[in-house]
């Protein structure tokens, strides 16, 4: 186990941004945290990296880590090559050659000032810098936001490649399709709490959709024009005799995050 988070809490004043969450990231695993805006994903990552002080709980990190922040802010007045020089000095076991190869692949001019790079190019630059650090855990906050689909797929491939080398990845994303594509396990957060966690296959196989006119013990996904309601519920908790449809991961996410829990 590379990372263990136990009962982590972080308050901003009275409000709990992270409210007693626990999870573990295993070696060689990609663990994704999903959730709507304000769910507490970024705060969780910042507590793990030490950028924010936790109020309580335990964070056990067994190895080195690096972090890609959500905003991907770099020094606008520095040139790309100067940023690389900075990472050579402060980066964690930084591989300059690898970084230069990545930047050449995406045709990022080393003499260009960061301020002249588009958001996507800045993200590529930051990702290239982070991928060129040799650490045990890569903590990536929305790593593919703002990238075109081709580059996004290549970057996801790079994320996957990290795990082939025994590295672990903890990342957040809004894009469910990409999470389905690469994550080994996920945690869905809402209002500072982890609502659901597990491997994608386990989650998908244990939940199903049930259409009913009656109120059921599950997450309300939607109400049909006919007045019938579609519930996401654990297959084992579904009433006998009802038809259970397979739920996509998007259905599960939507129902849990946006739906109302109906505990009869």
């Amino acid at each position: 186990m590379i990372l263990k988070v136990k009962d982590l809490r972080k308050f901003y004043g009275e409000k709990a941004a992270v409210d007693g969450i626990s999870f573990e990231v295993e070696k060689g695993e990609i663990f994704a945290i999903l959730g709507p805006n304000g769910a507490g994903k970024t705060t969780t990552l910042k507590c793990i990296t030490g950028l924010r002080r936790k109020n309580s709980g335990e964070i056990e990190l067994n190895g080195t880590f690096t972090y890609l922040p959500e905003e991907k802010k770099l020094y606008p007045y520095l040139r790309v090559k100067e940023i690389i020089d900075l990472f050579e000095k402060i980066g964690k076991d930084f591989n300059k050659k690898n970084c230069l190869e990545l930047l050449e692949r995406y045709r990022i001019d080393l003499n260009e000032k960061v301020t002249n790079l588009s958001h996507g190019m800045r993200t590529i630059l930051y990702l290239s810098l982070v991928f060129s650090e040799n650490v045990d855990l890569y903590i990536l906050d929305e790593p593919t936001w703002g990238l075109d689909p081709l580059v996004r797929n290549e970057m996801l491939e790079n994320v996957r490649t990290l795990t082939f080398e025994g590295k672990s990845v903890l990342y957040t994303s809004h894009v469910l399709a990409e999470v389905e594509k690469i994550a080994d396990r996920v945690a869905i957060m809402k209002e500072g709490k982890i609502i659901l966690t597990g491997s994608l296959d386990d989650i998908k196989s244990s939940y199903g959709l049930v259409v009913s006119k009656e109120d059921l013990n599950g997450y309300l996904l939607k109400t049909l024009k006919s007045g019938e309601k579609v519930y996401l519920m654990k297959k084992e908790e579904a009433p006998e005799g009802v038809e259970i449809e397979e739920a996509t991961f998007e259905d599960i996410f939507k129902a849990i995050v946006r739906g109302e829990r109906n505990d009869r």
Partner: protein
Amino acid sequence: MIVKELKDMKVRFLVMFFLLLGTFVLLVVMKDYTPALTEMLKNIPEGFLEKFGVTEEFIKKLSEWNFYIITQWYGKNLGQFVPILAIIIAFPIFAREIENETIELLLVRLSRKKLFIVKFFAPLVFTFVALFVLALVPVPVSWFIGEKLDTGLVFRYLLVEMITIYLWFSITVFFSVISSDQVQPLIASIATLAGTTVLGGFVKTLSTLNTYSYVLKGDLTLWPSLIYTLTGVVFTYLSWKSFKTRDF
């Protein structure tokens, strides 16, 4: 990392340095005009200039190189700029990284302690270097033009200016650490400088607050020097404590 810090402060540093160096050059050039100034001042009604401390003796003495440099460079131009120099160099040190969120990039890769040490001391050392050059430049110039300068007094002024730089640098860094943008520490530091100068100037019991009376007189006496140095140490400590525990 130190190279990056130098790049960060390059513009501010060079502007302030050459502005002050230019002021000194101008001051040296103006020296030749002091006899003409003396003649001109004779036409001013008697008693008017005395109100501002400009006596006939003072005007007479201005034509002496040593008196002219000590009063006009150390006791006026450079001395007045010393707290401003410290504030201009220090205000964005942390606030800019916090405002631009680049502090995250650094904190993930460096310990808070190391980052604080580099960010605090690298600009401070370079400000001292600038001060050394600016405070000592009259010495070789005096030698070059064959004039005498009281070097003992020059070094006394240098020490007083170093203490003043450290004091205002540490106060401004503290504001820089606790702020979320660059404007806040600049305004807070200048307001503090103005407030303490006015208070110290008008209220006799609070005269120690007026750092200008200390730096312009070159008054290297024990208590003010000790009080200012210790205040600088306290603000350095407060800056570190705030930086150590702050959320980013």
